[in-house]
């Protein structure tokens, strides 16, 4: 890509720039639409037409969302499930990846195959459903955390990362009499913070967005995380959860604005952590696609 000063090169660059700007606009517009929709006063929203910028702002919908116990509770559930789930899965994934980098560990290949096979074959939805039922995890928040102990894919990514840590660092610690647990906790983990942070944030985003597990196993609406409440409201068009109190007529007026506000509340945390993941994820994706 040498700087081309030719006219055709400049025309190409111009069109390319415009096209990419257009792509960026198409990507961002739906988010903007929701954001504007969430702050649009009722009088404005009933006027048909296109609101690129709202002329007046109203935070009524947000006040409404944060005044509803059910919604606030679901937000707390989401935060808990996201934090606990990510830490737990990261811990199990890391302690599984580490032993597998030892090439002379007896049974290493067999154990690795035993783990990796689950990526390629499974029993399917119904046997899994019956298992969770038998274990008594239905209607318990544990179902959103405990079964997701290990992501095999992330384990492989982390294993590749661990393999690139200089062996000498580990060996010198071992000579000093440190056991494997100590080496792992004192040397391997601190050196892997970027990889752990990236994978942790990926897992956290997955947990935050998880509506599937609650849909299958949580019938008790009091346990629902925000993603599931969102699904109930957006997809099933069920406003019941936001109901209660004396808001009925206001609610009717606000229905679309409330939906938009809840979408914003669910997307903002992802956009907030996004810059932190972005720094690393390209590398993570590459390691993952090359595989060990």
């Amino acid at each position: 890509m040498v700087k081309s000063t030719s006219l055709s090169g400049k025309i190409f660059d111009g069109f390319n720039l415009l096209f990419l700007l257009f792509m960026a606009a198409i990507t961002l517009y739906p988010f903007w639409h929701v954001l504007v929709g969430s702050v649009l006063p009722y009088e404005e929203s009933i006027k048909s037409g296109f609101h690129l910028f709202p002329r007046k702002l109203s935070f009524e919908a947000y006040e409404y969302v944060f005044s509803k116990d059910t919604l606030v509770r679901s937000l707390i559930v989401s935060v808990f499930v996201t934090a606990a789930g990510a830490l737990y899965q990261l811990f199990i994934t890391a302690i599984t990846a580490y032993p597998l980098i030892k090439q002379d560990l007896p049974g290493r290949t067999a154990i690795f195959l035993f783990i990796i096979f689950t990526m390629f074959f499974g029993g399917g939805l119904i046997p899994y459903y019956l298992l969770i039922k038998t274990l008594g995890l239905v209607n318990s928040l544990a179902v959103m955390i405990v079964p997701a102990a290990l992501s095999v894919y992330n384990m492989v990514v982390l294993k590749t990362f661990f393999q690139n840590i200089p062996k000498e660092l580990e060996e010198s610690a071992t000579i000093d009499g440190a056991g494997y647990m100590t080496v792992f906790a004192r040397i391997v983990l601190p050196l892997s913070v970027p990889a752990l942070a990236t994978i942790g944030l990926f897992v956290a985003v997955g947990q935050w967005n998880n509506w599937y597990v609650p849909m299958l196993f949580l019938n008790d609406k009091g346990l629902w995380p925000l993603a599931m409440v969102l699904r109930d409201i957006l997809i099933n068009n069920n406003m019941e959860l936001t109901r209660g109190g004396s808001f009925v007529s206001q609610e009717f007026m606000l229905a679309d604005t409330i939906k938009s506000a809840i979408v914003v509340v669910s997307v903002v945390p992802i956009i907030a952590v996004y810059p932190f993941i972005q720094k690393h994820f390209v590398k993570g994706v590459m390691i993952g696609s090359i595989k060990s």
Partner: protein
Amino acid sequence: MSGRRRAGENDMAARAVNTQGAGDVARRISKYKMLYVMLLPAVVFLIIFNYIPMYGATIAFKDFWMTKGILGSPWVGFEHFERLFATDKFWQVFRNTIEINLLRLLFGFPAPIVLAILLNEVRHKLFKRSIQTIVYLPHFISWVTIAGIIFSLLSNEGLVNKIITAFGGESVNFLTSNAMFRPLLVLSGIWKEAGWGTIIFLAALAGVNPDLYEAATVDGANRFKQIVHITLPSLLPVISILLILNFGSMMNGGFDQVFNLYNTMVYESGDVIDTYVYRIGLTQGKYSMATAIGLFLNIINFLLLILVNQAAKRMSGQGIY
């Protein structure tokens, strides 16, 4: 490469065992006992949450009764499969899954390649990085949220129809028409994943020697010719590998996307195997039948994967597992 390397290590390990005997293995096992302790939780969890359901899949060959349990329910052989293969609805969702995936392949597969090539042509670093940041974003948003946004844009009272009617047009049923549903799946899929998909192609392009472009410019090749003769050929290995891998997930209907976007009006064009299994099993409670479909699907997926891996190995000397 990975497979071969692993095999090589095994040979080395085997030789080591031969020369040093079983005492060495015992010594290494005791040296590494803490490492086995670290592996224990994962192995236990995988047995419970992955291997026991594989055993549970035997109810595909049983007449499953909740009260009798998996063990106590009577065997019926291939009865469920026979009934399944005689069901028109099953073949419809089977066909839907393949047809939708072919459409995704045809339109969704080239999208990130084109986008990556165009991004690669941008010389202004900050501009390029900003566009990348923006187009990666939808990958992290769940299909529930995206479906909600799509409904608010495309429903009968949605923005797009408001604009159409404001210009005197007739409002369009984007969400409940069989003609519109597949384009909706393909386009929303591109919107969500095309940007993210560029990562692997951009990485491949980062490795292209800049001298090639310089030489081409000296030879008088314009930008378009450079793309055709330098950029595309450099991407070809990655493109072919990813294309092959894509066939490995041909039976995967994309549950999250379809389940959040579809409705009874578009079952004819949009119902896929995964959503069908969900409804048969968990909405209608036909556990054995749904398990039979799931098992059939998983076996096809598994065979496809082995096939695809063989093909990838032959192409590049590098397998995917």
